[in-house]
């Protein structure tokens, strides 16, 4: 067994898990609090990457790119909420699906118009580009940056939701919208903030991954589906569920891609294992979802009081 490979795959799986968490936590809040299906959440992921890339190209500073990008996506999210989403919270889910699908088309086309059809690569500053040596193990520094960035946001989000007055209002809004409103809280402003916050977190995930993969049109459209799986398996509205399930799915997905063929070789011929392994590992996440829903239709961590 190659321990170095195993550990670097573990690092990869945590990285994927945290990116998924950044996407899924916003989705699950918007789902849980406003009961709004946002298919275009992946567009914020893409816009984050493009905003950041443009600023990096203009200023040469990666951190300026992150900061300005975050602010940009936050306001973009607020704009979408203010112009479109808030009119539809009381409408049915089909309307949500249609409008946010329309938004995906619009965002993809706008990126095409502004940045052109080819991808936008984001150069990393030198001190993030190197590798770090721990014993016999070598890690790219940037992967560790992604992981610490993801963990930091998860921590801040936890403190925000559980320790601040704003977080208390968010939790209260999720369990009884009308009651919060009748206590004199401006619920529209709260929703606006939650939506923009979710957008900013998705954008942050996009910025983190873009230096590795580069920013491309439609980059959010595939990962958003896995984020939806995370939200559903974790329980809609549950940040805690989103966190655990994101890490779990990141682990399952990464590990099955690298080790499933070795495992299958124990059971079948090499050729059969090599054919079947990619197909099975592509299915695993969804099979897991189906299995969870068959036993717990509301997910693993349904948001009851104190479980959020």
């Amino acid at each position, binding site marked *: 067994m190659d321990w170095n490979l195993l550990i670097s795959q573990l690092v990869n799986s945590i990285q994927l898990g945290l990116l998924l968490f950044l996407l899924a936590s916003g989705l699950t809040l918007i789902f849980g609090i406003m009961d709004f299906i946002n298919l275009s959440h992946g567009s914020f992921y893409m816009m984050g990457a493009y905003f950041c890339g443009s600023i990096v190209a203009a200023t040469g500073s990666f951190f300026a790119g992150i900061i300005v990008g975050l602010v940009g996506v936050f306001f973009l999210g607020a704009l979408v909420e203010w112009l479109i989403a808030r009119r*539809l919270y009381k409408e049915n889910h089909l309307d949500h699906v*249609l409008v946010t*699908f*329309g938004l995906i088309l619009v965002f993809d086309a706008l990126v095409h118009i502004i940045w052109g059809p080819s991808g936008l690569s984001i150069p990393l500053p030198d001190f993030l580009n190197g590798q770090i040596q721990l014993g016999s193990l070598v890690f790219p520094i940037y992967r560790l940056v992604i992981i610490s960035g993801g963990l930091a946001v998860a921590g801040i989000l936890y403190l925000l939701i559980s320790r601040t007055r704003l977080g208390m209002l968010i939790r209260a809004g999720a369990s009884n919208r009308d009651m919060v409103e009748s206590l004199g809280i401006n619920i529209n402003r709260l929703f606006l903030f939650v939506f923009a916050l979710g957008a900013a977190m998705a954008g942050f995930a996009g910025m983190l991954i873009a230096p590795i993969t580069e920013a491309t049109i439609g980059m959010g459209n595939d990962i958003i*589906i896995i984020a*939806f799986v995370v939200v559903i398996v974790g329980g809609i509205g549950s940040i805690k569920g989103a966190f655990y399930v994101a890490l779990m799915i990141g682990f399952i997905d990464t590990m099955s891609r690298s080790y499933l063929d070795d495992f299958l070789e124990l059971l079948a011929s090499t050729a059969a294992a090599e054919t079947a392994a*990619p197909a099975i590992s*592509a299915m695993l996440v969804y099979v897991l979802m*189906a299995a969870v829903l*068959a036993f717990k239709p509301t997910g693993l961590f349904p948001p009851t009081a104190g479980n959020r």
Partner: protein
Amino acid sequence: MAKPSGTRSVKVYLGMLFLLGIAPLLFQWTNQPFLLDLLSRGLIIGIAALSLNLILGYGGMISLGHVAYLGIGAYCVGIPAYYDIYDGWIHLSLAVVTCALFALITGAVSLRTKGVYFIMITMAFSQMIYFIFLSLEEYGADDGLVIYARSEFPVWINMEGAISMYYWIFGLLILTLFFIHRLVRSRFGRVIIGSKYNDLRMQSLGFNTYGYRLTCYVISAVICGLAGVLLGNFTSFISPEMMSWTRSGELIFMVIIGGTGSLFGPLFGALSFLFLEEALSLITIYWHLIFGGLLIALVLFGKGGIDAWLSKLDK
């Protein structure tokens, strides 16, 4: 909900079917093979939209993964053809069995859930099929699969040539329309429509709505799979891309612009979508922008779809 159609809109529908029936002759006479091509594709997608409308419009089951069945149907032509099996009856029965099985299994899980969960689960299952075909190197993976010859049928109903292909599509369209027309007016259809509006009430009337809805879901999947068989034959090239979830979004879009829960609406929707796509992409490469804007405007400002405008003829 389908209102009883007045005589004037029935005339419009019948006139349209008549036009569709003679369209190949008109196109041949005016020498427009491209239009025949476009119309054939439009009708195939139209059948898929009709099948989606059966669960979405009548049953209130918002599936965001319906193109999976279109893809499965197409691969039920492509994979046997890869092994030099061209018998059309084999392709058709394979598609029916595979789609019914997959719909039965995934439907049984999905229909236990409601609302948002159902939307997301159908989407995730279709994404699963998409990734499976994407990872099957043997069948071309993301490069897709070329189908070198069309399904073989007895000579008097063969698919060779653009016009006989068209009449296959037209035939399935008529069958589908007739079938759905009869189905939604049957006792079965009443239960499906009833459970869309008040599932609990239907259950307390003694109906096992879960079973009814699952059956409806499977029927819809099989119809869509048959459309997929035609699509595979028609395009002679299939790839996982045709199953990407955004395609399901487009299919829902077609049902909505046509009008949900009306018999002909989704067909109008599919045809307008494809013609609009062709026309707009001639004008600008950014036609997605117009499409997206249209979609948003439609939801925010307009309701009912094309069929609702047509029914105004009866007022």
